């Protein structure tokens, strides 16, 4: 095993539906300035940089890293740009982790962003469909996700009520998050009565479309103390995928997430996730996704996610709070979300979370990914 890797500085923008005052590059700059200041570092102290975004079709700038490098003063550094759909930010963090763990960098800056106000979100995602076989009838990620949620209802009992509980919980939690831009308390009934967009997905099951960026500084154990006395150490991190249209692909459980969590739990010494985690941050592009994560991450057995959310265990005051930040329901700049979830979990471990500090949080679980089930990752952070 290589070096220990810790998150020693974090920064995110105040996310918004549309930022007309800054360009994509300016948005990235804000998050980087905040993360470097938080880590008590300047760009000179950074060895390598990873820039992560969603598909370029989201905002029509190809090779945006060329623009971003100017904006963050990373000229002359090792810069890698990475994209992996919804999980882009998390995949970026994984790439940064490898650089530091492998000893190729003492400190790596990972910055992730999307400026979704600029393009056509669902249509852009429809271009991920096979152009020959399906794109003519593509409905972005929303129609597709709704279809498989409908299938899970029959097999796993992921009811509209259970998803509405997730939406109501996360939306209520987001009110205290200074970086969120959707802050309105909604009830389970409000969600159930909201307009069907791609039924069973309804308006309040859907997070906002956001402009935002998020950055973290990763450091090895030798340099971490320059930035903080309480790094959030990454005890395990993995990101797995599956074939797109293979015969045995059920899409009921997320097999890649189950594989990733197994790997990560082994390296982090997690044998009882429900007991051992103090707090969990997940990327829920629609409320129904969170139910699947409970099962694939082993917080409950398959088929019991609806019971878990109904029990209140994942509420702020439950025994395993999920998304005290409000998750994607407060802000959803897709490419940045993987890093935002890491930030929210890291600050919990550091004891300085701005949304809802979970008392004595020592061990956190982070999940992120793209697509309905096919690209999924998770990480364990601890003090």
């Amino acid at each position, binding site marked *: 095993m290589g070096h220990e890797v810790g998150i020693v500085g974090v920064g995110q923008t105040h996310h918004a539906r549309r930022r007309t005052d800054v360009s994509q590059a*300016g948005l990235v700059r804000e998050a980087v300035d905040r993360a470097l200041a938080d880590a008590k570092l300047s760009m000179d102290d950074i060895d390598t940089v990873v820039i992560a975004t969603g598909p370029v079709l989201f905002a029509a700038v190809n090779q945006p890293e060329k623009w971003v490098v100017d904006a963050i003063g990373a000229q002359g550094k090792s810069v890698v740009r990475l994209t992996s759909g919804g999980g882009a930010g998390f995949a970026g963090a994984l790439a940064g982790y490898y650089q530091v763990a492998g000893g190729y960098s003492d400190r790596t800056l990972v910055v992730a962003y999307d400026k979704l106000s600029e393009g056509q979100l669902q249509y852009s995602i429809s271009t991920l469909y096979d152009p020959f*076989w399906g794109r003519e*009838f593509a409905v972005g990620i929303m129609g597709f996700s709704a*279809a498989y949620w409908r299938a899970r209802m029959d097999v796993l009992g992921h009811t509209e009520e259970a998803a509405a509980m997730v939406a109501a919980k996360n939306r209520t939690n987001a009110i205290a998050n200074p970086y969120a831009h959707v802050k309105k308390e909604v009830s389970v009934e409000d969600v159930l009565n909201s307009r069907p967009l791609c*039924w069973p997905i309804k308006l309040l099951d859907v997070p906002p479309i956001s402009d935002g960026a998020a950055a973290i500084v990763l450091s090895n154990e030798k340099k971490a103390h320059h930035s903080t006395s309480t790094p959030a150490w990454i005890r395990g991190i993995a990101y797995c995928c599956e074939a797109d249209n*293979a015969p045995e692909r059920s899409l009921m459980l997320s097999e890649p997430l189950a594989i990733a969590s197994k790997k990560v739990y082994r390296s982090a010494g997690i044998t009882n996730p429900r007991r051992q985690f103090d707090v969990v941050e997940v990327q829920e592009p629609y409320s129904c996704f969170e139910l699947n994560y409970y099962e694939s991450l082993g917080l409950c057995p398959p088929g019991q996610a609806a019971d878990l959310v109904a029990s209140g265990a994942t509420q702020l005051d439950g025994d395993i709070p999920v998304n005290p930040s409000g998750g994607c329901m407060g802000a959803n700049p897709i490419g940045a979300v993987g890093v935002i979830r890491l930030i929210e979990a890291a600050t919990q471990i550091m004891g300085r979370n701005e949304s809802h500090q979970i008392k004595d949080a020592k061990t956190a679980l982070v999940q992120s990914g793209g697509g309905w089930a096919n690209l999924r990752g998770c990480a364990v952070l601890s003090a």
Partner: protein
Amino acid sequence: MFAPPEAHPLDMETFHSQISMPYTLTPGRAAGTFLAEMPNRRIVGSRFPDGTVVAPAQDFSSTDGEEPEELVQVPETGELTAFTRVDGNVIGLIRLDGCANDFAHRILADLGDLSVGMRVAAKWDDTDETSIMAISGFVPDADAPVGEVKGLVGPAEPLGVIDYSMSLDYQHSYGPYYGRMFDEIREHGRVMGVRTSSGDDALLPPREVDDVTHKRTGTWKACADTGTIRACSIINMEFFGLTREVPYVYAEVVLDGASTRMIHVIEIDDLETAKKNIKPGTRVRAIWTDGERKGRVSDIERFEVIED
């Protein structure tokens, strides 16, 4: 894994697809001010803390990432530093007086009359467009005096958003597997897949290698026009790129004889009835077009529920 066929490349028919959509791009403060000032016939640049001036104005220095101390008005005269001809237009790089970078624009002169180092001056168009094309181009002007960078008095509000659109055309190659499948759809109105490496179920779309066993797939097989819904949702929201009127059902159908899904649509009268009648497990039938088949999935117009 498998040797390529012993054949020379053939010029085959391709599958056309287009990705086309509108954008609202954000230039940011500096470029937004530059664009807003174009109809006022002022070229806006950025002056950075190290004293360098660049135009068009930029929010961040490309040498060290610093933000500009101020936005400035730069001269509309300069020196030609490079030029070429593209699509009948002469394009040049111009070092505007007092600037540290080159400004790219059209040069309104014949290529043969140009030389590097030549003095040039902007020729403004009569327009109120907030675009760099408010300058029609630069013209050779041997006597143009050397201008000076000035403070920008009363700058215009930066443009927040710029409308933009992108349209990308692709010609995809079918390859032998998709090629045969779409030939069969066009010529015979039937959907054919290939068997998995070890079973009788067909993979749709057909492919060379079985994703599960990683062995070569089996022989070709026609699937039925009937099938079972594996997953479905009711599209009730209009968004850019939709080709059908809402509400309708988006369905992933496994055709009888196949083991993988096909994406299609089912027309419905209303949402509430569809919730009850169309669900995973519902039996459906493909309705082929009455018109000429083109060799696309959309030669099947829609699926219909098979009534008991």
